[in-house]
């Protein structure tokens, strides 16, 4: 019984070694690690395409995380690291796409639509109010005469 337990313990201990050790190794320097982690959030995982490399379990994401740490540790600025990946993987690797003619619709579409919508609402509201004002014609002589007694005796 004892040796079974011992064997089980040993197996449990070595089990993680059998699986591929795809565990991130953080940088020792806290500030550099923080920068690397922030960069991970800005880089798209090209395998899964909807996630940042920080969120992805793909092997490529793992490799790119290590690469970013390596470059940050080597003294690269954030922009240099992003440029490095941009040169290899293009705009898509950046979760925040650069502003250029091909992405104008992406960047300016929503605000432009919002302005158009706002203008439309403004115009429609003004249009519908104008006939209202026009309808408030001054009372005619007959109306005033009819109204006067009512106002004077509180409608009694």
């Amino acid at each position: 019984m004892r040796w079974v337990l011992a064997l089980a313990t040993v197996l449990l201990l070595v089990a993680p070694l059998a699986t591929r050790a795809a565990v991130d190794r953080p940088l020792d320097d806290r500030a550099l690690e923080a920068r690397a982690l922030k960069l991970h959030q800005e880089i798209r995982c090209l395998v899964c395409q909807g996630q940042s490399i920080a969120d992805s379990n793909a092997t490529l994401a793992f490799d790119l995380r290590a690469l970013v740490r390596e470059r940050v540790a080597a003294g690269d600025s954030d922009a240099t690291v992003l440029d490095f990946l941009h040169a290899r993987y293009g705009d898509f690797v950046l979760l925040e796409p650069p502003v250029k003619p091909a992405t104008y619709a992406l960047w300016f579409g929503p605000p432009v639509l919002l302005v158009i919508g706002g203008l439309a609402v403004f115009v429609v509201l003004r249009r519908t109010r104008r006939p209202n004002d026009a309808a408030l014609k001054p009372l005619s002589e007959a109306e005033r005469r009819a109204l006067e007694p009512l106002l004077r005796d509180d409608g009694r």
Partner: protein
Amino acid sequence: MSEQPEPIVAQELARPIARRRLWFALPILVFVGIAAALVFGLGRQGDEHARDLPSALIDKPLPAFTLPPVEGYEVGLSDADIKAAGVSILNVFASWCGPCQVEHPIWMAYAKQSDAVPLFGLNSKDQPENAANWLKKLGDPYKLIGADRDGRVSIDFGVYGVPETFVIDATGRIVLKHIGVMTRKDLDQTILPLIARLKG
């Protein structure tokens, strides 16, 4: 009481109906237009290559690299080898990659063609013995193979989905990147005509 003001609703109704309809229809038309564009975009997902990303390396020179040979081989691969070969194909493969096995017969057949340009292999993130066994079992269509153990050269090539195939011109520039399985159709209709043009 004879001079009652005209009710507002009536005034509103008195405006030409056709014009009012147009104004009501405009936002709906805009919405339908945007929705149609988005639905079309989603529909493209059915297309095999819809999710392929444009390569940042098109029209750029080959990245510089030197790789050791696959286990059991004498010679590795460097960018100089590819440049010296003129118009050529570089195929990124791995034994762990199922689709690579699917396209492998295509390359075996191509390498036997008399007019074939040199075909180079980039063995991406493979275990040495696995790569060697894979090539032994299925055959080796490559002129030279580089073993990219840690995947760094693959990253330099912007590889994100093995298999990938690059066509390189005589000056060592990357002209085309094909992502995913190379089919007979892709080879015959895209790759080979391009190579013929580059050579001619």
